[in-house]
């Protein structure tokens, strides 16, 4: 195709667009960038495998392979224990791809354009995180469907179960900033995954997700009791199958705040340095 340029309106001229800077504007910009991520997701839906098939496989594996042994005879009792735990673990894992994608994206140059625009430096990162909500919602949906299939039943009420999902998504939105930070600091997108697995695997297995903490040695119990994923899992369990929630909820919210306070500035600093 040759460029036979139509000789009409000028591409530049007239007044430049004035950029305003406020929190509302930044949020609006972040939403625009989130929409970009969602469009990309519709073009490559296979990006959702790790939040659809992967948790389902984990669920089936632990229910049917380990469930008999771990549940002490009652598979149903183990499923009631496992599903809320696995939800917490899956939601923490779901953020891994975010850092990986951001790392690859920045290499490609689209972010250079964002940097040259009069928008807040945080907008592209916040936008990417916002778009990731769709993945966390997908995880919750998968658990609602496959959890029911393997025999899980909510023992409290629908509202409490929905609160458990909402808390999990909110937690994921804070936890994923670790992944974003690693995505900014790692040199290749492949290494982002490696580093994140090193971080997330001990946190997800060194928790109360799969087995009761009382079966672990004392030194490990100390780690598990202070693991943010354990607190989240306890909350989700309490909200879905009953039991006390308040204590772990405070800890979970505290951890969420701490994750944001530490990793949002670190991620932004990494992003700014990565020019």
């Amino acid at each position, binding site marked *: *195709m040759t460029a036979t340029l139509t000789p009409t309106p000028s*591409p530049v001229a007239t007044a430049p667009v*004035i*950029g305003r800077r406020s929190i509302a504007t930044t949020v609006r910009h972040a939403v625009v960038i989130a929409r970009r991520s969602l469009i990309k997701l519709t073009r490559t839906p296979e990006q959702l495998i790790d939040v659809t098939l992967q948790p389902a496989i984990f669920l089936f594996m632990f229910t049917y392979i380990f469930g008999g042994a771990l549940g002490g005879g009652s598979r149903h009792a183990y499923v009631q224990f496992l599903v809320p735990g696995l939800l917490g673990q899956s939601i923490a894992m779901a953020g891994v791809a975010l850092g990986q994608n951001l790392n690859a994206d920045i290499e490609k140059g689209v972010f250079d354009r964002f940097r*040259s625009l009069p*928008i807040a430096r945080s907008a592209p990162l916040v936008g990417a995180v916002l778009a990731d909500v769709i993945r966390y919602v997908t995880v919750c949906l998968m658990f609602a469907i496959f959890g029911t299939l393997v025999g899980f039943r909510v023992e409290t009420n629908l509202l409490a179960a929905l609160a458990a999902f909402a808390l999990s998504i909110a937690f994921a939105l804070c936890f994923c900033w670790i992944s974003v930070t690693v995505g900014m600091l790692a040199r290749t997108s492949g290494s982002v995954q490696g580093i994140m697995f090193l971080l997330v695997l001990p946190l997800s297995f060194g928790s109360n997700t799969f087995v009761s903490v009382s079966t672990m040695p004392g030194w490990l119990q100390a780690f598990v009791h202070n693991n943010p994923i354990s607190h989240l899992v306890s909350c989700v369990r309490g909200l879905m199958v009953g039991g006390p929630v308040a204590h772990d909820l405070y800890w979970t919210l505290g951890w969420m705040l701490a994750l944001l306070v530490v990793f949002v500035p670190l991620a932004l600093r990494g992003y700014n340095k990565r*020019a």
Partner: protein
Amino acid sequence: MSYAIEASGLTKRFGSTQALAGVDLAAEAGTVLGVLGPNGAGKTTAVRILATLLRADSGSATVAGFDVAAQPHKVRQQIGLTGQYASVDEDLTGTQNLRMIGELLNLSGRDAKARAAELLAWFDLAEAANRPAKTYSGGMRRRLDLAASLVGRPAVIFLDEPTTGLDPAKREDMWEVVRRLISDGSTVLLTTQYLEEADALADEISVIDRGRVIAHDTPDGLKRVVGGLRLAVRPVEEAALAEVGRILATISGGRPEVSGRGKLTVPVESDLALTDAVARLGNAGIAVTELSLHLPSLDEVFFTLTGRRAETDEEDAA
């Protein structure tokens, strides 16, 4: 005299590589500054500093009157950037790419859409507007990239090697686009590896080498130094070289030089020298395998200015 782009003493080091070693640049408002240099000379680094993507280690620069280090947000309101590698989002369509930029520039949804349509039409991309950019050809991508940098009607436009990798016909299309930007009053900083391109578009040219400006002049001034048009002739028979030399001497008045094997090159004044040479060589019955009229290549420019060949470093310091 007001400068839309002014840089003095910019330095930047990446690890052990001194990408910029004190660069001064200046472009008056409404003009085109050509920055000519080989790969790795520091062109891209300079552009990234001026476009606020990178901070200089030392030195200072203003763009559209704002300091790039102290007022980057103000600078970003005034500039458009087209990178060396077209930075469009491949998964998004042409329209989606441009609308996104428009909305980030605080246009309303409707205005962003209108602006996208206007630019796509202007860059002859209307038919491809709703196809993902990954289906675009190289030339189309460059045009979309350029369109994206113009959404905000920038006063200062940075074009980092806008035609590198394009075939010659597409290159001239791109030149036409750039000329029209200039006629609209924007200030343009254009980096290139081709003297021909700088000559065709720029009001002034800064030649940059190893992170330093080694020459700054108008295209005519630069050509006076490095030589303007050259006519090169390679006869079929090497024995005819002497005869060819005599003919070339009468055309140009200059002394023909042997360049390469069996080839003679002579500086000439005008395009007419080519037809003149064809006629005279024809009359003398001399067959030629090569006959060309060209501006000095980047290599030749560098040889004249520095006495050595341009060192091209494949890895352009980002």
